[in-house]
């Protein structure tokens, strides 16, 4: 068993693009759920809106890269407004079902072969972000930290990604401690009280949904740029659930919770993968009990178990935060 390898792999995942994207998306989710109390389980739909909005406008209409990025963000804004229409007047369980349904409608639509000429159907949209790499200021070469080797291409994506995370944390921090953020929290804690103070709860909820959704779109854009490709398989409903695991791990309603949670989530996911792979090749331990091809499923079963145990025994997250909901 090579523990150094386990740690290195875990650390690579915790600092890599998926973790960055999750951090962004979960910051958005934290605004929805942690600060406003909106139980949105279709965050992945905002990622899809961002990636496909940009991909389609770049590939189909030949828009320049930066215009395509703006188009992706605008798509997320529109989705937020559209979702706000039915969802925000409803109780938590309806909001949950509407958001997850909407994200699934988006995935089914972009995957459909009947719109293949627009979305690429099941095979997706490729190479629309090449100009992002053409403006890479990082000189060619191999870079690395803590035993993790990256090339200049990856370094550029990670630099932009982490800068975005830092910016999102800063803006969110400023927003939630502003009067606007206070209204959000009052809606979360007692919607009727907020309303009786003359606040238009509905408008604030829509604003919260749109802002968190835009962060989700940035996450989707980052993933698509990193792969220079986007396929419908990346937008399955289950990924929103992973984001909730990250959110609860890091602590709901904490400003840095999403970043810590996303890094922890990816560290644990990757480290356990490497560890399991080492254990099953080692005859003395798990050899023959779990097979290579089942590792992915075993890991995800543990993610599910972990989510249950967290919410039941440590709802405030590993580092302390709010519990998911109010007492009944």
């Amino acid at each position, binding site marked *: 068993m090579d523990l150094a390898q386990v740690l290195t792999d875990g650390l690579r995942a915790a600092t890599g693009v998926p973790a960055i994207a999750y951090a962004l998306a979960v910051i958005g989710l934290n605004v929805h759920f942690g600060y406003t109390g909106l*139980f949105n*389980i279709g965050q992945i739909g905002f990622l899809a809106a961002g990636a496909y909005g940009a991909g389609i406008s770049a590939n189909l209409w030949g828009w320049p890269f930066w215009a395509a990025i703006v188009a992706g963000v605008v798509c997320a804004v529109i989705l937020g407004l559209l979702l706000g*229409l*039915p*969802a925000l*007047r*409803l*109780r*938590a*369980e*309806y909001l*949950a*079902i*509407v958001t*997850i*349904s*909407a994200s*699934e*409608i988006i995935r*089914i*639509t972009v*995957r*459909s*072969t*009947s719109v293949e000429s627009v979305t690429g159907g099941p095979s997706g949209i490729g190479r629309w972000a090449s100009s992002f790499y053409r403006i890479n200021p990082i000189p060619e070469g191999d870079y690395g930290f803590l035993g993790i080797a990256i090339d200049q291409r990856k370094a550029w994506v990670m630099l932009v990604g982490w800068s975005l995370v830092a910016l999102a944390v800063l803006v969110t921090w400023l927003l939630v401690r502003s009067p606007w953020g206070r209204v959000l929290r009052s809606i979360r804690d007692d*919607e*009727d009280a907020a*309303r009786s103070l003359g606040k238009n*709860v509905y408008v604030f909820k829509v604003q919260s949904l749109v802002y968190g959704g835009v962060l989700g779109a940035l996450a989707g854009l980052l993933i698509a740029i990193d792969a220079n490709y986007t396929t419908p398989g990346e937008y399955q409903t289950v990924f929103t*659930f992973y984001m*909730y695991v990250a959110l*609860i791990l890091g602590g709901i309603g904490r400003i840095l919770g999403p970043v810590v949670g996303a890094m922890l989530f990816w560290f644990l996911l990757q480290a356990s993968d490497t560890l399991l792979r080492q254990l099953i090749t080692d005859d003395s331990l798990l050899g*023959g*009990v*779990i*097979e290579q*091809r*089942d590792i992915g*499923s*075993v890991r*995800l*079963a543990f*993610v*599910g*178990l*972990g*989510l*249950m*145990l*967290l*919410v*039941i*025994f440590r*709802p405030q997250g590993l580092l302390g935060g709010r*519990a*998911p*909901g*109010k*007492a*009944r």
Partner: protein
Amino acid sequence: MTTDLARRLVTGAMGVLLALLAVLLSSPGAHAQEGDPAPAEVAVFGVLEDSEHGPVEGAEIEALLGEEPVGTATSDADGQWRIVLPGPGTYRVRIDPSTLPEDVTLRDPDRSELPNVRVLEGRDKRVNFALGERVVRSGADSPRPPSGNRVVTRLWTGLVVGMVIALSSIGLSLVFGTTKLVNFAHGEMVTFGALVTWYFSSGTVGPGWSVIVAGVVGVALGGVFGAVQDRALWRPLLDRRTDLISMMIVSIGLAMLMRYTYTVLFGNSVRPLREYAAQAPWQWGPLVLRPKQLVVLLLGVGVVALYALVLQRTRLGTAIRAVSDNRDLAESSGIDVRRVVTIVWVAGSALAALGGISYATLYGVEWDIGFRLLLPIFAAVVLGGIGTAYGPLVGGLAIGLVSELSTLWVPAEFKFAWALFGLILLLLVRPQGLLGRPERIG
């Protein structure tokens, strides 16, 4: 309090896992224990079905390892065939076109031999030989106006699918009505019934019972599983006055735990049940149907009638409706709410299992059928009015009909998207659902 809860949860969780393992551990997807002398057999199998004439009987299929034949099979009256192989590996599988009936041909004459059929350890491999003309998916390329025949057939399929969804939805709605839990793990209860039935009837190491016997066992075990879940997990959480959103998240975690456990044990291929997988269609005037569809529909009608009778005419039914209506009031008027909730869990889970088994006879078994049905089930429940007793029936049939009829005009890929879209639209105008009572929110 907390330690007591912890102990109950841990024992409960272990009970659930053990029950799952006991049922499924020896399925071919599971792995041979250390020192197990007999490795699980693997096979290639398939169903020969002509797009026009139905199942094809008497065709000869051969499997070869390199140039060496390792087994042959002849398709039976249902078109099914199966060749047991010496072990995992890459095989050549070929069909003898001369043994096909005269009016049946291979869609692609060059594809009588499939040169690279990879068979993994512990998992049977499905092999398809496409026969007859390709059936153009309705509207996939050029949407056509519906003709009488297609409308009738879609209507019929919609009814059958709607009944499956309705059966699967009742438990979700009743559990919500009595405990306010929105259970995201409900879909996995649907899969559970299908998997258990598959194991007892069609699994290579199972006892090989008939599908009907295995189905009865599947429904019963589904009910047991529901009781275990209630006692081990949800009752302790409710006793702790856990909030609704936390319970929803716990159910999301449970769903993932169950679903990925299924994949590890069962694999990720679609497997048909041993019987009824392919049936010759019956023609009744403009309607073409398969007998199993009729059975599923009639069974559903019978079960729903029984359900309505229990709900309306028995003390238990009255109690269930009372608890759904107002839990505290029901409790203070002497109803044993916990007992009612347990019964709801058992009945709801058994019905979900029945829905899964019905689905499996129609479309085969897969590890995530319940998860794929979950959103249509949610849509049915919300459409009918969440927490209501008969809402799921109305909602389920509506979802089934809307999704099947939509394929007359738009590609079938969008089937469930329409149902979900309709759900969102309905929530705009009638958030309490079709049968629910309006309630002031916020």
